[in-house]
C-alpha cells in the first residue's frame, strides 16, 4: 500500500504540472474572412465577423492562476472526502452498541392496541413570495 502511495505522488505531480503549464491549442484553422465567404449578406453576421477580424487571436484565459484555483477547490473537496471516508472506515472497526430496545424478545402476536385517537389541534400557514 505504501508503495502504491509513493507511486501516486509523482503521477500526481506530473499531472498537476501538465495541467498548469499546458496551453490550450491555438484557435481553429481558418479566419473570419474565410467564413465570410460562406455567409449571406445578413448585416448582423457581417458586423460580427468584422469585429472578429479586428479582435485578437483567441487568448487562453486559462492561466496558471486559473489552474491553481481549480486545484485548490479540488484539494479542499479531496480533504473533506478523505476525512469522511476514513472516518466511516474507522467507525466500522467497532460494532459494540448498547441495545436501544427489546424488539428481538417481543412475544409474537402479543400487541394489543386499545386506544388510538388522533386529535387535531391547530393549523399554521406561511406564505412567502417567490424569489423570481
Amino acid at each position, binding site marked *: 500500500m505504501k508503495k502504491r502511495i509513493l507511486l501516486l505522488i509523482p503521477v500526481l505531480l506530473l499531472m498537476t504540472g501538465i*495541467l498548469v503549464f499546458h496551453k490550450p491549442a491555438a484557435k481553429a484553422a481558418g479566419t473570419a474572412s474565410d467564413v465570410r465567404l460562406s455567409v449571406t449578406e445578413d448585416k448582423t453576421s457581417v458586423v460580427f465577423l468584422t469585429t472578429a477580424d479586428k479582435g485578437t487571436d483567441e487568448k487562453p484565459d486559462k492561466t496558471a492562476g486559473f489552474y491553481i484555483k481549480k486545484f485548490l477547490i479540488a484539494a479542499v473537496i479531496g480533504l473533506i472526502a478523505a476525512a469522511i471516508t476514513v472516518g466511516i472506515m474507522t467507525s466500522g472497526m*467497532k460494532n459494540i452498541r448498547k441495545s436501544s430496545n427489546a424488539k428481538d424478545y417481543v412475544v409474537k402476536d402479543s400487541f394489543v392496541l386499545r386506544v388510538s385517537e388522533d386529535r387535531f389541534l391547530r393549523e399554521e400557514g406561511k406564505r412567502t413570495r417567490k424569489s423570481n
Partner: protein
Amino acid sequence: MDNTFYKCPACGTALQYGAASGKLECASCGNTYEVAEMEAAVRGADPQSTFSWGNYKAGLQANTDTTTKVYICKSCGAEILTDGTTAATHCPYCDSEVVINDAFDGGLRPNGVIPFKVTKEQMKQIVANFGKGKKLLPRDFFTNKRVNDVQGIYVPFWLFDGTVNGTVEFDAKKVSRYDDGNYRVEETKYYSLERGGQLSFKNVPVDGAVKMDDAMMESIGPYRFEELTDFQTAYLSGYLADRFDQDPDDSVPRAEELMKASTVERFRETTKGYSEVRDKNKSLSVSNPSVKYVLLPVYIINCKYGGKDYRYAINGQTGKMVGELPVSKQRRRAYFWGIFGAVTVILGTILSLL
C-alpha cells in the same frame, strides 16, 4: 467446598463438553457420553430448580460473597485459589476441568443454560470473517496464536419476562407545501395522538456479571432461547463459568427500559401519515414480571496490541462476534492521502477542463 470432576469411565482422562456433538467427549480415547448419563453417574438425579422471585432474592442475600475461595482438585489434589464468583475452571496444574458446586447451590442454581454450539474450529473462521474487509486493521493482528487463546465462558444472565401496559401521547404534525400564484405556501397542521395497549416480552437478557462489559454483552445477542435447556453442571465441563455478582434488582431498570422503548416504538408504528411524530408523555408499567437466572455461552478473546488491551466476545450459540478492532495509523494515513490525492487529481482535471 465440593467440586465435580468428569472422568472418562474408559480411560480416566478429564472429559470436556463438545460444542459440536452436545456430549461429553474424551480427548484421549475418543469416547463420548450423554450429559444426563454422566450427570446421573456422578451425582445421581439432578435436583430440579425451584426458582421463584421471592426465594431467589432471599438466597441471593445470603450467597453473593465474592471473596476468594480455595478448592481442591480431585484429579491431582492441588489447592487452587479462585474468585468466589467462579463456578467452573481449569486446574492450572493438571488442566482438569473442575466445576465448583458451591457456586450453584441453593438459590444460586441457574434455571437454564444454552450449551456451546460453536466449536473452536468454527471460531477461527468467525474471527477471520470479522477482520475481512476491515481495511484499517493491522495485518498481523489476528494471528493463529491469538485465536488459540480463546476462552469459552458461561456468562450469568437474568432473563426478564413481562407485559408492558399503558398509554403514550405523541405530538405530531403534517406539513404540506404548494404554490399559489407568486407565493410559496407552507401549511402545518398540529395533532395530539394517543395510543394505548399492551405488548409482552419474553427472555429479555441483562447480564449479571459486573466484570463483563454491558454493551458488549448486549451486542452479541440475540440468543435463540428456544434452545435453553435445564441446567446441568456437565455442560460447564471444559469451559469457565461465572456466578452472577449483579443483583437482579439492579438489572430490572435496564430490562424495563428496553421493554418500554420497544412498546413506544410499536405504538409509534401505528401513527401513519404524519411528517413528524415525537413522544410527549408516557405512562407505562410492567405487569406479570418474572425473572430467570441462566448461563449463556460466550467466547472471549483478549488481545494486547500496541500497548492497548482489546477484548472480543463471540456468541457461543450463533457465532456473532463483537469488539473494537485496532486501527493501523500507517494504513489510515495511507488511505487518507490516497483518497485525497485521487480526488484532487481527478476533480482538479475535470474542473480545469470545464
